[in-house]
C-alpha cells in the first residue's frame, strides 16, 4: 500500500508522542484562563516589576558581553595565527561545562569579603582584616558577569563556524577597497554573519531566562525565582503557572527570533567564488594581545572556578567523598542513563520516521519536540506537576499519589529538555547514511523494522553514543526541574550542590560541583574534537 499515508501506525505514534510532550506547556498556558488569586495581586503590586526589570537587565547585559567576547574571540581564532591559537580555539568552549550556578558559587567563594581572593590580597599586602579589594558580586552586575562567562561559547561556536565559511576573497576585496583590519571585522565580518550571531545570542537569552540556581544564590528577583517562591513559599501552583506563562511570552519571542535567524543564515553560505582563509601570522605585542583576549574568558569561565573548587577539595582532604556523595552520584548517573536511553531511542524513532516517510507530520513533530530545549526547566516542572496531579486524581481517584513526586516526572522533564540535543546528534548521523543504502535494502526485501535494526542502528552507533553522553551531561547539570520534581529525600549532584551552597557550605558543595563539571566535560570533549576537524579544506 501507499507508504506516505499520515494515518499509519508510525504517524499515530509520532502524533501521540507530540501530544504527550506538549501537554505540560499547554497546561501552563491554560493557567491564564483560570482564577487569579490574592497571591497574584500581591506579586503584581510588589514583585512583578522587579521580575520584569531584573530579567530584562540581566538578558540585555549578558547579551552585550557575550556578543563582544563571542564574536571577538571567534574572529581572532579564525583569521589569525599566534602562539597558543590551536589550543585556544577549542578551549574557548570549556566554560560550557560549568553551569552558571556553579560559577556563581565559586564567585562568591572567591570575591566575598572573606573570600579567597580578598584574603589573598590582604595577606599579600598586609591590609587590615576588613579591607576588601573586590566589590560585592551578589548583585545584578555579578550575575551578568557569571552568565556571560559561562554562556559566551554559544555565540563563539556559531560565529566561529560562520567566520570559517566566509570567503577570503571577500575579505581581500574589503582590504583593496581601503578597510583596515578592525574595519573589516565590524563592517564586513560581523554584518555578513548577523543571522548566525542573533541565533547564538537568542540561545544565550533563553539560557539566562531559564536559570534558577545562580539568580537565587545572588538573591536577584527574576521570573524563575518568582515562580519558585510562588510555589514553595506561597504553595500556590496556579500563580506559579501564571508567572511561568508570562515568562513563556519572552521565551516564545526568543524562539521566533532564533528560528528566523537560522532560516536567514543561508546567505552566509559559500558562494562559487569561495576561497578558503589564509591565516595572518601575528607577532610581538599583537600576538600577545590576541592571546590575552582569547585566554581571559577561558580563565574566568573555566580555570578560575575549577581552581577554586580544587583548592576547596584539596584543603579538606577529600573527606566529603563519603557515602552520601556516592549515593547522590549514583542517583544522578542512574537518572542520566535512563533519560539518555529514552531520549536517544525517541530521537532515533522520530528521525527514522522522517527518513522513512519524509512527510510533513514527522518533520513538524521533530521541530516541535526540539523546542523543549528552549523551555526553562522550572516551567516544565510546574506543567508536569500539574499534569501528574490531574492524572493521579482521575486515574487513581486521588486515593493514591502514584505519578506526582515519582521519578517518572523527572525523567519526562529531562527528555523534553534534552530531546533537541539528542535529535541533533542522530540527525547528523542520518545525514551521513546515503539514501541509496535504504533503497538497496528495500529492494532486497527489507521491512521497516529490519531496515532500522540491521542497517541504521549499526551505522548510527557513534551518533547514539554521542547523543547519550550529551543527554547525561545535561541531566547532571539540570537544577530547577530536578529540585521541584525529585521524589522526597532523593538528591542528585545538582540538588546537593544547591543545598550546600544555599547553606553557605561551599566547601561541601565543591565535591558534587566538581563531579558535575567533569561529567559536563564529556560532550565538550566531543565538541572540541569536532572543532579541530572542522577547518575548511581539512580531510575528515
Amino acid at each position, binding site marked *: *500500500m501507499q507508504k*506516505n499515508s499520515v494515518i499509519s501506525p508510525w504517524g499515530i505514534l509520532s502524533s501521540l508522542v507530540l501530544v504527550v510532550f506538549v501537554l505540560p506547556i499547554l497546561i501552563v498556558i491554560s493557567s491564564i484562563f483560570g482564577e487569579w488569586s490574592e497571591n497574584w495581586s500581591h506579586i503584581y503590586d510588589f514583585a512583578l516589576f522587579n521580575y520584569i526589570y531584573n530579567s530584562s537587565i540581566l538578558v540585555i547585559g549578558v547579551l552585550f558581553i557575550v556578543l563582544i567576547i563571542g564574536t571577538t574571540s571567534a574572529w581572532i581564532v579564525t583569521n589569525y595565527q599566534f602562539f597558543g591559537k590551536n589550543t585556544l580555539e577549542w578551549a574557548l568552549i570549556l566554560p560550557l561545562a560549568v553551569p552558571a550556578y556553579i560559577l556563581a558559587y565559586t564567585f562568591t567563594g572567591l570575591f566575598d569579603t572573606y573570600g579567597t581572593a580578598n584574603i589573598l590580597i590582604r595577606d599579600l599586602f598586609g591590609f587590615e582584616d576588613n579591607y576588601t579589594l573586590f566589590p560585592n558580586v551578589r548583585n545584578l552586575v555579578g550575575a551578568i558577569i557569571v552568565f556571560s562567562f559561562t554562556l559566551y561559547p554559544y555565540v563563539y561556536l556559531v560565529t566561529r563556524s560562520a567566520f570559517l565559511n566566509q570567503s577570503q576573497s571577500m575579505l581581500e576585496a574589503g582590504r583593496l577597497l581601503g578597510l583596515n583590519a578592525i574595519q573589516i571585522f565590524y563592517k564586513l565580518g560581523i554584518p555578513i554573519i548577523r543571522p548566525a550571531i542573533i541565533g547564538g545570542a537568542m540561545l544565550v537569552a533563553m539560557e539566562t531566562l531559564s536559570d534558577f540556581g545562580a539568580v537565587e544564590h545572588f538573591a536577584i528577583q527574576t521570573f524563575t525565582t518568582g515562580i519558585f517562591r510562588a510555589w514553595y513559599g506561597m504553595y500556590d501552583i496556579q500563580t506559579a503557572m501564571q508567572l511561568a506563562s508570562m515568562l513563556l511570552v519572552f521565551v516564545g519571542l526568543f524562539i521566533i527570533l532564533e528560528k528566523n535567524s537560522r532560516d536567514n543564515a543561508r546567505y552566509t553560505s559559500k558562494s562559487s567564488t569561495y576561497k578558503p582563509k589564509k591565516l595572518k601570522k601575528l607577532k610581538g605585542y599583537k600576538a600577545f594581545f590576541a592571546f590575552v583576549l582569547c585566554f581571559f574568558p577561558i580563565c574566568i569561565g573555566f580555570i578560575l572556578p575549577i581552581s577554586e573548587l580544587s583548592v576547596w577539595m584539596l584543603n579538606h582532604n577529600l573527606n566529603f567523598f563519603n557515602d552520601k556523595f556516592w549515593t547522590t552520584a549514583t542517583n544522578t548517573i542512574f537518572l542520566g542513563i535512563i533519560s539518555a536511553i529514552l531520549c536517544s531511542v525517541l530521537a532515533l524513532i522520530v528521525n527514522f520516521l522522517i527518513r522513512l516517510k519524509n512527510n510533513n507530520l514527522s518533520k513538524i513533530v521533530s521541530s516541535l519536540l526540539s523546542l523543549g530545549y528552549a523551555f526553562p526547566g522550572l516551567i516544565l516542572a510546574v506543567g508536569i506537576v500539574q499534569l501528574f496531579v490531574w492524572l493521579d486524581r482521575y486515574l487513581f481517584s486521588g486515593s493514591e499519589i502514584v505519578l506526582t513526586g515519582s521519578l517518572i516526572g523527572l525523567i519526562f522533564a529531562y527528555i523534553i529538555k534534552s530531546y533537541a540535543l539528542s535529535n541533533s546528534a542522530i540527525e547528523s548521523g542520518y545525514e551521513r547514511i546515503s539514501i*541509496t543504502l535504504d*533503497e*538497496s535494502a*528495500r*529492494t*532486497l*526485501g*527489507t521491512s521497516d523494522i529490519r531496515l532500522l535494526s540491521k542497517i541504521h542502528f549499526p551505522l548510527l552507533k557513534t551518533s547514539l553514543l554521542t547523543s547519550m553522553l550529551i543527554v547525561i551531561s545535561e541531566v547532571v547539570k539540570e537544577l530547577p526541574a530536578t529540585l521541584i520534581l525529585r521524589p522526597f529525600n532523593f538528591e542528585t549532584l545538582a540538588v546537593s550542590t544547591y543545598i550546600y551552597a544555599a547553606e553557605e557550605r561551599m566547601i561541601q558543595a565543591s565535591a558534587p560541583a566538581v563531579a558535575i563539571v567533569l561529567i559536563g566535560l564529556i560532550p565538550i570533549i566531543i565538541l572540541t574534537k569536532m572543532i579541530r576537524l572542522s577547518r575548511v579544506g581539512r580531510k575528515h
Partner: protein
Amino acid sequence: MKPSVLEIKNLSHSYENETSILENINLLVKSGEIISILGSSGCGKTTLLRIIAGLEKQSRGTVEINHSIVSDANFSTPPENRNIGLVVQDRALFPHLTIYENVNFGIRNLSSEIDIPLEYLKLFKVENLSKKYPHEISGGEQQRVALARSMAPNPDILLLDEPFNALDKQLKTELHNETKKIFRKKNSTVIIVSHDIEEAKFFSDKIYKMKNGQLAEMSIMTKN
C-alpha cells in the same frame, strides 16, 4: 512465446509544480529479456527505474509485475514486496557488513542447502573477498559484489542504473563480458539505464531512447 514480466501502461509522472518528467510511457519486458534505456542526464530514465522499483510513485498509469498490478494511481506495493533487484552507480554496499553478509542480506530462503551467497560470489569471482568489508576492496570488486547482492535473492527483474559508469574502460569491458554471461546463464530479466550507446548495444535485446519524458524503441538487437 515468452511470458511478460513487466508491463507499464500509460505511465506519467511529474513532481509538484513542475512540468511532466515522464509522459504516457508504455513498456513490455519479457522474461529473460535485457533492455536498455538510453537518454541524457535528467531525462527521466532513473525516475522510471525508481518507479518500477517502488521507490517513487507515479502520478498516473499502472505498473504490472508478473501480471499483478504493483502500483497505480491509488496504491503502491512497497519495494520490499516487489522482488526486484537494483544496482546503482554508487553501489550502496552496507559499510558495516562483510562482503558475504552484504550478499546474504536479501536472501529469504535461509533453509536452502546451497550456500547462495557463496554461489553468487563465485559467479562474480569475488569469493576470496567474502570476509572483507566494502572499504577494503576496489571499485571494480565493489561493483561485482553489488551485482551479486542484487541477483542472489533471484529477483523477477534486475534494474541497473548506470552500474558501470564509475569504472575505467578496461575494467568496464571485462565486467561487461562476465556480467552478460551471468545474465544469460541465469536467464535474468534486466533493465539497464545508461547513457553509453555501446554498452546498451552490447547488452540489450532492445534499446529504448528517452527524450522529453517519452520512450521510443530504437532498434531490435540480435542476441549474442
